[in-house]
Structures are given as C-alpha cells and as structure tokens.
C-alpha cells in the first residue's frame, strides 16, 4: 500500500511544478476588446518574447473563464459579483484581484437623424422596460422605438440593468446583439433605433445627453463630464486576476496602469483611471 502511494506521489510530482509563463490570455468584456487588443499589440511590440491573446465574449464569459482556469485575466465592464467570487474561492482559494484599468461613459446612442437630444435616466428606463414605446412621448417623431441591447453575458447589459433599469427587466421586444459594434451598427441603420454601449464606440451615430433627474441639466459623455462625475452613467472598466500578479502578468498590469498604458486608454476613446 505504501509503495503504491509513494509511486503515485512520485508520478504526480511533475504536475505540481509551476508552468512557465511566456503567454498571457485575456478574455471578457466586448466593451474592452478594442482597448485590450491595443494594449496587447503595443506591449508585445516592446516585449517580443511575450504573447498576449485577447478575446471577447462578454464580462460574464471572461469571469467564468477566470473561475475555471482558462484565462489569466478577465476583462469586465462591471464589478465581479459575490457569486463569482465564491466560485473563485472554491476552485482557487482566492478572492480575485481587481484592477481598475479605465473609465467609461456608457453612451446612449440614437440615429443621427433623430431630433431627440436629451433624455433623463427615468425616461431611458421607461423606454427600455417597454413603458414608453413611441418617440413622440419623449419629444421625437411619431414612430415606434426600436430597442437594441446587449446579450445577458455582457457586463454592459448587467451594468445598464442594474444602474439604469434599477433591476427591472428589459422589454421583451428588445433585440439583443452580440457586441457593442453590432448595437452601433443596428442604430446607425435604424432611424427609430436606440442603443447603448461604450463611449469609444460612439462613432457613426449620435450620443445623447443624459439628465440625472427630470429637472437637472443634461450632460454628454465627454471626458470632462465623466471625470467630474456629472455624466450620470459612468463606470470603471476592470481587469480581474485570480491571485496577486507575479512575473510577466504583474509587469503587464503595472504597464497598463502606468501613464504609458493609460495614454492608450485615451487614444482608444475611453478615459484614464487617474
């Protein structure tokens, strides 16, 4: 018996040697994909021995990959949920390390021809929960509002539901599209469309001003308004790791939150954390 146990222990020894890390995998938020790819390209050009593989799939998908060990870094456009932390604890005995990597103003997009320039948070909520179904109700043309949203594995979807819809369900007629680019494309082609997504994607359509309350001033999702906190739908963009980073991953994260990495945030269209 003891011999069997010893033999098994010896066989298992190679398994417990830490793997060499010359590659970093990054998975998650579609909102952050363009930013994460840009970071990776520039970092790899300065570190030819490092390979960084970036994929999207949504914040939930990235955090799920972090829980099951198939990615090193999970990008998320929302904070990690308590249940996701619990899964990290169960599998890796770790709470996960949160890195605030950028800031984003969550833009509400309409077609360029749409005369509606501003909406309050309550109006946006009513539109997306299906209480308001015609643009006429909010000062637009007499036309049915066509809703574009993200899929439910998206951090943007969850953030919008939590902070704008305040937990209410999206209207059943909402068209859920895979990726912010698809939402932007949908609204750009639809005169009666409305969508939401990262500020960096707000090209080819128009971002409207958002009022916190009915009587308060409306603010556009500009850097100044987001930095000052005036724009009511701003958020952090996060990177999550299983443990406190070491080696190559630590170098990469340190570079991302350094002035050089944060310059890239600005160039892509998001806003630096500091």
């Amino acid at each position, binding site marked *: *018996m003891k011999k*069997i*146990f010893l033999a*098994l*222990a010896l066989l*298992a020894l190679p*398994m*417990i*040697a*830490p*793997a060499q890390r010359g590659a970093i995998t990054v998975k998650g938020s579609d909102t952050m994909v363009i930013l994460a790819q840009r970071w990776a390209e520039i970092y790899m050009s300065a570190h030819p021995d490092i390979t960084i593989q970036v994929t999207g799939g949504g914040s939930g998908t990235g955090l799920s990959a972090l829980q*099951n*060990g*198939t990615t090193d870094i999970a990008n998320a456009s929302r904070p990690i949920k*308590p249940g996701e932390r619990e899964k990290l*604890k*169960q*599998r*890796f*005995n*770790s*709470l*996960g*390390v*949160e890195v605030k990597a950028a800031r984003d103003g969550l833009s509400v997009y309409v077609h360029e021809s749409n005369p509606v320039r501003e909406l309050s948070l309550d109006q946006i909520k009513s539109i997306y929960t299906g209480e308001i179904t015609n643009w006429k109700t909010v000062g637009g043309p007499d036309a049915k509002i066509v809703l574009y949203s993200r899929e*439910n594995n998206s951090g943007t979807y969850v953030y919008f539901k939590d902070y704008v819809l305040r937990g209410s369900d999206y209207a*059943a*007629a909402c068209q*859920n599209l895979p990726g912010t680019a698809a939402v932007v494309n949908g609204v750009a082609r639809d005169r009666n469309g409305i969508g939401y997504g990262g500020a960096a994607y707000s090209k080819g359509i128009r971002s409207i001003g958002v009022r916190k309350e009915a009587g308060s001033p409306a603010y556009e999702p500009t850097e100044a308004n987001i930095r000052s906190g005036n724009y009511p739908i701003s958020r952090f963009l996060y990177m999550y790791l*299983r*443990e*406190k980073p*070491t*080696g190559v991953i630590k170098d990469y994260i340190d570079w991302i939150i350094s002035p050089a990495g944060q310059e890239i945030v600005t160039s892509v269209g998001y806003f630096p954390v500091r």
Partner: protein
Amino acid sequence: MRRSSNVILTLVAALLGFARPLLAEDDSPARVEELKGQVEGMNETMLEMQSTLSALAKVKISGYVQAQFRTGESDGQASFAGGSFPNGVHSQFMVRRGRLKVNYAAGLTQYVLQMDVTQNGVGIKDAYAQITDPWSKSLSLTAGVFDRPFGFEISYSSSSRESPERSRMFQTLFPGERELGAKIEYQPSGSLLNAKAGLFNGTGPTANENDNNKDLIGRVGFQLPFYDANAEIDGGVSFYGGKVRYNSKFVYAVAGDRWAVDSTSHPVGDYFDRNYLGLDLQSYFNVLPAGGSSVRFEFITGRQPSTSSSNSAYSVAFNAASTPLYRRDVSGWYLNAVQNIGRRNQVVLKFDVFDPNTSVEGSAIGKAGANFTPADIAYTTFGAGLVHHWDSNVKFIFYYDVVSNETVDHATTTANLVPFKEDLKDNVLTIRMQYRF
C-alpha cells in the same frame, strides 16, 4: 494564361448578363415590398424564438460523475472513505456519486431537483423550492429536502471538495447532509454577517417523520474580506436543537467507567435531547507565486442519543421494537489545508478527529462489565492528496487516508472489541476521476 483569362472574362460577362435582370428586379418597388415583408416575417419569427429561448434559459442542467478506484488494507474493512468495503473485498471500482441537477430560476424564485445515480440505485439528494423577498432581495425561504444549515463542510459541494469525503464527524452526525424541512436565510448584500435557520423532521433526507418534534438547526456566519491582500476570513457558529422519541424505558448513561442503566425516570415515548454546537473558520490567502491557499477548521461538540452498537442518531418508528437508548457526549474537529500550485494542481492535507463518547478513554473501553462497544471508539484520520484539474470539466484526485483508532488494552475484553487491541488495518487509497458539467 491567355486562355484562362478569356475563360474568366467570359464567365464575368455571363454573370453580369445574368445579374442585370436580377438587379432590375431588386430595384422594383414590388420586390422591395416583398423583401420588406419577408424581413418583417423573419423578425416576428425571431421574436417568437427569443421568447421561447428566454424561457428555456431559465432551466439550468448540471451534474457530475465521480468514478473511482479505491483499495483498503484489509478485506471487508469498515470505512468512512466512500463506505465500508464488501465482505471479502479490499479493492473496488465504484461510482461514488452520479449527480444530475435541474434548476429552474425565474427571477426571485427557483426550483431545484437533484438525483444521485450510482451502482446502488437512484436516490434523491435535493428537492426544494426557494423564494426571495422582492424588496430587499436578501431574505429567502427554502422548503423541501436540502442541506442542513449547520457548519461549513455540509454545504461545501462534493464536486468542489478537495478531499474525497467529508470528515467522520459529519458523516456520523449528519448522514446524507440533507434533511426535510424549511429554512429562512438572511444574506444582505454587502454585509459582513449572514444567518440561516430552519425547522426539520430530524430523521434524515429520505425517512419520514416519526414524532411530533421538529429540530431547530441554524448558523450565524461572517465574512471578513481583505481585498487588498486578496485574503478573507469566514466563519460561523452553528447550533442544532433537536429531540428524539424513544420506545424503550431503558436509558443508558456513562457512570464512571461503565454504562449504567436508568429504567425508572424515563417513561416510554418520552423525548431525549439531540444537541450540537459547532464552530467553523475558513481562511483564504495567497502564497505567491504558487497560488491561492486555504486553511479550514471546524469543531463540533454535543450530545447524541444513540444505541449500544451505533453512535449515529437514534431514530425509530412509532411502533418499532423497543431499542434501549444510549446517551453519548460527542466531539470532533478537522483541520484542512489546500494549496493551489499554478492553475491546475492542488495539494491537500486533512486531519480529522472524532470521539463518539468523550466520557470514556480507550483504555477503559474494553474493561469487563463496562459494556462498551466499537461505537465508543474514537478515530483520527490523516489524509493527504493531490488534485489535478485536467480541464475545466475533469479532475483527478489521488488521496490516501491513514486511519487510527483508540486501542483497548484489557485482556478480558469482549469479542467484538478484540480487534481494537491494536490499530485496525483500515487505511484507504482513493483514485478518482470526476467529470462535471
């Protein structure tokens, strides 16, 4: 070359000639209207499919199979590492657990049904409904068959646990982990404290109630995260307040170094206390560069109504033959350490102690006339293992349990205690493959 160019030009010309009428047709208002109608039709179909898929998305099916080989030191040995070995057998393949779980979550309500399919048949593990309050979303009511709200290890899923089995004290005091009843759980978002408590039959997950007494089980827990250090300390205090009805007028209690019987003060059909108090602590921290690490500790002490030959909880049907009741004071604890090594591997060490009768030492157990049995013997188990996560679905566990028992040193001891004059040959090696989806 020229020949092929001519062929290509001819093909392009032919295609253009073919395409022109199509384009002309596409431009016609009738064709546009037709296409618009088709797109609208597709949109309607999509919306219908979306509503169907949304309903299906509420159903989640998950499960796991634990197929394992285990080998013990002697034929037919009693074991808590996956159950006792069959007579004449000391090695076997088995399906330790084969779970299939269906969960339907509709907003703030959910339905859960979990089956266990093994070589021994099909059994029920979970069958409960749960509702959460719509205002604070922190208060929930659960009713049916589900984990007893006591301690940590009971509700720590067998699919996630790093050691193949729960500690001996949990297997003895809470066999099957589940119970029939209803509980209320308070888990406020962002709070460091949580609490859960419920009333249960007290007869186990698959037995019907046999008295009018309900057992109260609960736990008050805390979570102290230290996010900057990626560390956390969790813990809780648990209690079990129950009673069992006994059918015999004979009640035994330890007096000095022997069982003494009381047949006068307890009328048949009276109730007897079954009480436990538990403390659990879990700490999580990083050991760099290896990975996350945890140390878990749990201690239980209490009073267990049981029988002469078994230290499991006493439970008999209303009209069953009378079985004398034995009052045992029990205690047990375990210390479990897990170290992650990189993404895929974990090293596990576990030390587990259970004393089913704290009123008597092993040296006195075999004394002539004391009437102690193997049910009074204390055990310690040292387990060591390696867990290798093959991928996100599959993991392998290599685990060895070194089991030690209290020894009896009396020459005149009864036959059933003779084997306990020395440490039993009952160590077990378990090699398990688990698939979870």
